[in-house]
């Protein structure tokens, strides 16, 4: 698939599929055209997920699934296991070392392959090319979706603006702790209009003659949240995980259900909707102080909030940044959506070191693992990571998509 410089067209599955078909035909491949006006049908929308320590055996509260990718328009497919389910990002990113398919690159008009850097808040980053793939999960399928192959083989040197977040290049299973990331957050794309209007350093690049320069990219060619590329069940997801014991569990199995209020298995039920601001954040109040940039993130492996001084509990001696209260402690906070919904949440915090050591270190799922977000000086948020998900149905509503009661994303529900 190619994207024209300075020329913009609306994203549609049809347009992308047509482009991919042309590109494949040019490479000697063949493909059949899908129905241009797919009629929503009832399909299996339940994707199994599991919490375990991951392929590197060192990922507390990592929640993983198997994603099938295919050469667009063909039945040449590969199932990639151990992909992290992440409501804090958008787009499918897979380690290139794990992908054997030959997927067509997303290129500009001069056949330069689009490259991407993503810096994460912890300073780590990924870098690699953007390719087009069909994505299959449960009975759902997204056609010709731009995904990233995280570069395991140093095809191009990582640009300085990409390494400038200071952390590690997560281009191996050991570093990433997973075979990839399935970003299914509240946005349709990973960058959106900012990267469409700006050649922003540290985001998208073109590398003619091996020299990489930042480039603007129309939103249709940016990485897409796979869910909204589905013909149905595309307005968000429901993540459903059972409760776990307070001492933790080695594995926990649950469901990633596509769509919100689209089938009998993804109705809101008693869940409340908390709409967010344009950045995907809502307000959390603790001790009469409002924190305005809170979010719910299955890719964060703990509850990250405040700091030990504010909470009155110690950090762990051998695991700095984790909380180690002498006995389990709980905090009650109030969340508020932009829509006026308000409700209290109890956050349980146990001794992280004791949790890591329990059961011979084999436990992975913890409902009370928590750490420091550095709020003493500036941070303005609670990061409701994986512990928040246990024993709770959590809905993630995608921007511009309509959900139950005509609510329009972005929103969370629980």
């Amino acid at each position, binding site marked *: 698939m190619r994207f024209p410089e300075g020329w913009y067209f609306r994203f549609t599955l049809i347009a992308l599929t047509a482009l991919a078909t042309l590109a494949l035909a040019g490479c000697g491949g063949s493909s059949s055209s899908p129905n241009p006006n797919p009629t929503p049908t009832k399909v299996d929308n339940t994707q199994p997920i599991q919490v375990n320590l991951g392929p590197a055996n*060192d*990922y*507390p509260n*990592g929640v993983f699934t198997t994603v099938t990718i295919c050469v667009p328009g063909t039945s040449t497919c590969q199932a990639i296991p151990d992909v992290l389910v992440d409501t*804090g990002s*958008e787009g499918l990113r897979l380690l290139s070392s794990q992908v054997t398919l030959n997927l067509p690159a997303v290129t500009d008009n001069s056949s330069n392959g689009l490259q991407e850097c*993503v*810096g*994460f*808040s*912890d*300073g780590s*980053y990924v870098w690699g090319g953007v390719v087009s793939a069909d994505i299959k999960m449960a009975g759902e399928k997204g056609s010709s979706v731009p995904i990233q192959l995280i570069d395991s083989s140093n095809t191009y040197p990582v640009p*300085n*603006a990409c*390494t*400038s*977040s*200071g*952390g590690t290049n997560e281009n191996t299973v050991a570093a990433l*702790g997973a075979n990839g990331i399935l*970003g299914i*957050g509240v946005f349709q794309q990973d*960058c959106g*209009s*900012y990267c469409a*209007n*700006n*050649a*922003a*350093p*540290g*985001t998208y690049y073109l590398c003619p003659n091996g020299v990489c320069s*930042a480039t603007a990219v129309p939103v249709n060619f940016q990485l897409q949240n796979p869910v909204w590329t589905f013909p149905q069940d595309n307005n968000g997801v429901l993540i459903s995980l059972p409760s776990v014991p307070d001492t933790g569990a080695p594995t926990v199995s649950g469901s990633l259900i596509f769509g919100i209020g689209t089938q009998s298995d993804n109705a809101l039920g008693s869940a409340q909707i908390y709409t967010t601001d344009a*950045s*995907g954040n809502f307000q959390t109040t603790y001790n009469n102080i409002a924190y305005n*940039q809170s*979010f719910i*993130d299955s*890719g*964060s*492996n*703990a509850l*990250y909030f405040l*700091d030990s001084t504010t909470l009155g509990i110690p950090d762990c001696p051998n*695991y700095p*940044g*984790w909380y180690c209260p002498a006995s389990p402690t709980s905090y009650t906070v109030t969340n508020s959506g932009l829509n006026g919904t308000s409700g209290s949440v109890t956050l349980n915090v146990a001794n992280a070191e004791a949790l*890591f050591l329990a059961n011979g270190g084999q436990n992975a799922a913890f409902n009370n693992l928590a*750490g*420091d*977000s*550095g*709020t003493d*000086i*500036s*941070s303005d*948020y609670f*990061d409701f*990571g994986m512990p928040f998900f246990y024993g709770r149905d959590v809905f993630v509503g995608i921007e511009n998509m309509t959900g139950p009661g005509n609510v329009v994303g972005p929103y969370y529900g629980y």
Partner: protein
Amino acid sequence: MFLLLGSVPGWAVLGEYESSVATDQQRMHAQLHQVARQGYSIKQLSSPGGRTVREYVSPKGMVFGVAWQGPTMPDLQQLLGSYFVQMKQASRSRRQRGGPLVIRTKDLILVSGGHMRSFHGTAYAPNLLPDGVSAEVVR
């Protein structure tokens, strides 16, 4: 329109004297907003797309703190200057994944948090805080 925060050479950085904010602002097509406070000043640069950097400047012109907010991670190497090395060398919390970064050393306090499309953070040098100014102003 293609020059953004972090891409501009000469960006006033943590621990250095601010001298080029006006030039940066011009190159960035950013709006510069200055606020004088008791014992320090804030220079805020906002560029199209919702990216903001605030510099906290001592009466002598030394940048003692920076704060950022935007849809992607900023170029911390340029914002932190010589403190970037300290940030890279600081030990990371074991087994923390996908969350914030918090660094507390004698010379550098840094927090970085958020999620894709909403990144924010602050950094300051405790040794450079002007007399009578609390670290809490850097936010």
